[in-house]
């Protein structure tokens, strides 16, 4: 079964249409990357799937169920998102414990204390962090909390919007290793947005190159590694990466 299917997806912000006719199907357990420059609509696709960009037309199917335009509880159980900026994505006046318990409370799930502790361990944070505030944590630790929060409801699909671009190289390596391990352990499906092709090479199975709101090429990571992308724009991106 496909974890995620997008059919003829158009997404608009007000009068501006930013995504045009995107078709994509991502198998369960697959790790898929959307790459492209800013404004190419890649983050917008994640936002539409998560219910944060409700102005869309076409079809979004998550784990076999068609998604409506509203925020739905059943969808939040299946799909969760991790944002780019770990400094902006945690509530500054809520402890880590409160941030991680909130999704459980909303969905009426018991054993919150145990689940929070287990999740902190799973993302490699010591339990002493549980009652701290975000400002007491480093960027890498905050991103671990953001990942933990996304995993609290045991979703099947993780939407990752540039999860490491705000982090140092060595911290980025830690978070990438963590994501890879969690995916292996929990059989997650990843839809990752990035502009960093080496990350795609490390973490993903397939990728789609986007430009001006359209997918220009879908390729296998093996093709990326071998430098065999076909479309001129994809080759341009690849050249920009290899040059540095």
């Amino acid at each position, binding site marked *: 079964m496909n974890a995620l299917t997008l059919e003829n997806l158009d997404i608009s912000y007000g009068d501006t249409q930013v995504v045009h006719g995107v078709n994509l199907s991502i198998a369960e357990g697959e790790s898929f990357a959307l790459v492209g420059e800013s404004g190419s609509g890649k983050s917008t696709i994640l936002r539409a799937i998560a219910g944060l960009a409700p102005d869309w037309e076409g079809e979004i199917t998550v784990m076999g169920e068609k998604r409506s335009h509203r925020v739905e509880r059943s969808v939040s159980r299946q799909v969760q998102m991790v944002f780019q900026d770990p400094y902006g994505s945690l509530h500054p006046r809520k402890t880590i414990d409160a941030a991680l318990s909130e999704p459980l409370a909303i969905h009426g799930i018991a054993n919150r204390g145990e689940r929070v502790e287990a999740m902190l361990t799973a993302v490699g944070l010591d339990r002493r962090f549980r009652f701290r505030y975000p400002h007491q944590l480093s*960027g890498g630790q905050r991103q671990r909390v953001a990942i933990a929060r996304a995993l609290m409801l045991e979703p099947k699909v993780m939407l990752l919007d540039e999860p490491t*671009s705000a982090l140092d190289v060595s911290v980025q390596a830690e978070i990438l290793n963590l994501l890879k391990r969690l995916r292996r352990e929990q059989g997650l499906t990843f839809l990752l947005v990035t*502009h*960093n092709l080496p990350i795609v090479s490390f973490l993903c199975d397939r990728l789609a190159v986007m430009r001006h709101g359209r997918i220009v090429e879908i390729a296998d990571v093996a093709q990326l*590694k071998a430098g065999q992308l076909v479309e001129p724009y994809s080759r341009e991106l690849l050249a920009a990466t290899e*040059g540095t």
Partner: protein
Amino acid sequence: MTPLLAVEDLRVSFPTHSGRVEVVKGISFTLGRERLGIVGESGSGKSMTGRSILKLIRKPGLVTADRMEFDGIDLTALSEHQMRAIRGARISMVMQDPKFSLNPVMTVGEQIAEALLTHQKLARKDVHQRVIAMLEAVRINDPERVAKLYPHEVSGGMGQRVMIAMMLIPEPELLIADEPTSALDVSVQAQVLDIIDELVRNKGMGLILISHDLALVSRYCDRILVMNAGTIVEECAAGELANAQHPYTRGLLAAMPTIDEAREELPVLDRTQWAGT
């Protein structure tokens, strides 16, 4: 030849509950009309080094140096007023985040014009032309339209190009770029750095490129300083980076994924390894 910039025993400290903490611990370097890269992770003191050259560190921060000379001028002795004639006109700095560094209530065009008019007198028509030409130079399509926009109306990448335009329009002799492209995509990153690179070469400017990205710095600089915990742990020619000796530099190099990544897991820095250095 006298160097463009000479720094000896630069120290920056901030007071804390348990006494002053030095974030830059006595570093020395010289810079000619060349491209120098400073790399290091958050907290290594690389940004503080850049800021202290422009005397942008406010109290209670304290900057001391045995020598800090720019083109024969002793920067440590300059008053705030004298410093203003140098900032922007002769040394300018591209900051990290366009969101916080651009004035939200001025249009992009006005801000770039202001940078120019602060240091030069020019006719309005010429100013407009220079602004548009500069926006074109940083590869903004449709510069006439963009000049009329406010910072919140442009994307992060575009905002950064606007800031670079603003910093380069007075044609400074030394440009300090602090993570100038960390908000941009790879494709645009290369373009923006190519623009900076071209200007630096053509005008014989000096460049200090501060970044956490080793690959980027090695591509655009002649010489690299690697900083960790306030000290320079390694200095090498850009081409020699792959042969770096210091365990910290080697750790950073290994932690980066590559385009043909085959490792199942990335090596993570063992932070105790060089703690003594």
